[in-house]
């Protein structure tokens, strides 16, 4: 093979590699659109965004955690607990802002505990958040019991998950706002820089005099708050708070979206914007397979295969 040919091929590959996920997303959209016309209707497309809003909010908020070399497995139960906290605040007759704050505070608090243990005691994040998964789920079950708590006659609260604004579901606006906020935090604030620095080389960032522990704690607080917001939207959407919401597997979907977006699970490289791409990729795959009536078992296998292929390609690139 001649040198020019190799150069040209490498040039194309280098050009394509960073956009591989976007290209893959475009390809599957075309495939689904051709095989099922119902896919490309505006109703279905809006439905996809609405469906991914909950996972999407959690994924954008977990991106920083994974960029610092951590992971948060406790987001599922946090989602349930924050829904319950909001429900009880509603029952107590609190005004809406207080209700939302109560839910968010629960998530931020769990995140704070996660962050403090990971950052200051330097215990492995997988195990810490695994333990927290158990602890928070147990707490949710004690607080809420096994029964469903119906949220009735609360139009303001129900608007969060079911209302529409200018023809679009309100939850989409929340998702967009969170995504925009996190992208701005990453690109325009010291926190975004610090997160990247820690992921790149924690020791170097520490020696440069940065507040590593504070930053690491903060990213878990953000992640917890994000899961709590998702819990508020979920409970509002289904008019119910339940201790078993966010079942085992929720955290895996969230992590899958983040790593599909190209954030390394070892920390370092990553971007909130590309996490969004991962979220939409998984959302479109799920939706398309549902429309095409692919059974749930094949969907699970496909999801596993997609993660493996995407990451194997990423590993080869690196």
């Amino acid at each position, binding site marked *: 093979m001649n040198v020019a040919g190799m150069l040209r091929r490498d040039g194309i590959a280098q050009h394509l590699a960073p956009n591989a996920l976007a290209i893959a997303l475009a390809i599957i959209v075309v495939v689904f659109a051709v095989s099922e016309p119902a896919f490309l209707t505006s109703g279905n497309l809006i439905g996809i965004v609405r469906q991914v809003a909950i996972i999407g909010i959690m994924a954008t908020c977990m991106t920083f955690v994974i960029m610092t070399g951590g*992971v948060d497995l406790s987001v599922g139960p946090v989602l349930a607990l924050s829904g319950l906290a909001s429900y009880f605040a509603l029952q107590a007759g609190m005004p809406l802002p207080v209700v939302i704050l109560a839910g968010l505070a629960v998530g931020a608090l769990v995140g704070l505990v996660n962050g403090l243990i990971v950052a200051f005691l330097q215990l492995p994040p997988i195990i810490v958040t695994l333990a927290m998964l158990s602890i928070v789920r147990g707490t949710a079950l004690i607080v809420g019991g096994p029964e469903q708590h119906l949220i009735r006659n609360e139009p303001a609260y129900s608007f969060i998950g079911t209302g529409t604004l200018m023809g679009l579901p309100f939850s989409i606006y929340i998702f967009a706002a969170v995504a925009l906020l996190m992208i701005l935090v990453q690109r325009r604030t010291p926190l975004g820089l610090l997160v990247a620095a820690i992921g790149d080389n924690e020791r170097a960032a520490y020696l440069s005099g940065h507040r590593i522990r504070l930053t690491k704690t903060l990213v878990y607080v953000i992640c917890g708050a994000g899961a709590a917001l998702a819990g508020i939207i979920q409970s509002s959407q289904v008019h119910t708070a339940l201790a078993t919401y966010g079942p085992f597997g929720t955290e895996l979907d969230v992590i899958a979206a983040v790593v599909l977006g190209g954030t390394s699970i070892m920390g370092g490289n990553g971007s909130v914007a590309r996490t969004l791409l991962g979220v939409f990729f998984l959302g479109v795959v799920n939706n398309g397979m549902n429309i095409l009536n692919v059974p749930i078992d094949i969907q699970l296998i496909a999801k596993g295969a997609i993660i493996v292929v995407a990451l194997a390609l990423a590993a080869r690139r690196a």
Partner: protein
Amino acid sequence: MKIRFSSAALLLFFAVTLAFFSVSAPRFATASTVENLMSGYAFVAILAMGQAWPILVRGIDLSIGAIVGLVGMIVFDLSLIFSVPGYVILPLALLAGALAGALNGVLIVYLHLQPFIATLATLAAYRGLTYSISGRQLVPGLTTTPIRDPWITGIETYFDLGGSIGLSRLINMPWFPLSFFIMLAVFALLQVLLLATRFGRDTCATGGNAEAARLAGIRVGAVTIAAYAISGICAAIAALIMVARFTTATEALGSGAELTAIAAAVIGGVSLAGGVGSMFGPAIGAFLLGAILIGLTLQGVPQFVQQIITGVILLAAVGYDRLLVLRRQRKLETAATGAGR
């Protein structure tokens, strides 16, 4: 090869826990508690000993719960749909577990995936496969048909050892479940494998420092794949025990088992930093977890609180592990500075 000095500490803690509940919980110090502990946690101990191998090579296996489900469904199908005799099913089940585990290893070694991600993906894939081969969906009439093959249901046998040696006349002795003896056999086998074979030493070397192990001529890739295969085989054994107990398999069999297994392994002193651990620790860790949960149940503590306590125990165990690592580092540092002077 390092063995944790904490083995003794763990055993002591186990004894203290037993003593505590014997005093504080009604009906804890009885034959039936011992029997519950042996039958309810033998398979957890097997899963934990299996999980220790991926952790020893500095990985983790999140897919064991899904492998339990998959192997359980394979046994269900072979026995009820294809009427395969039990003595053929048993080796096939172990083979299926080994293959599922080895695939994890292959993804990690050849595709350079992080163990956490690779086994996360196979967790989804194996669970999906379980649904798609589910005899409950394929042949609707089978949902209520129990598995009657004596080779499989025979795993759920209890031996009246106390009665046979005449001890039962003196004190009330528990009946010993066969699953407990299977656990002992797995323990003996894996302990020998870890301590007395080249493969065991290679495993610890790989987990301690993969690059150094590779330069020393150890086939790091093969060792890693084998470690995950062992984890898969242990999951298959656990699946057989569970299927024998329920005389059926469901699609959700074993879901969440990875959490308990990882907890028991970490409590048992298998270091997440890799290269350090024993088989004794995870087994005791599993029974310690079991004793605490059974004790709390007898004390009337609701199950939800037990979930919280399990989490707290896991945190304490990993905190203790961290403490040991720090102490070892400090010792090394003082040794180094001492030599410098």
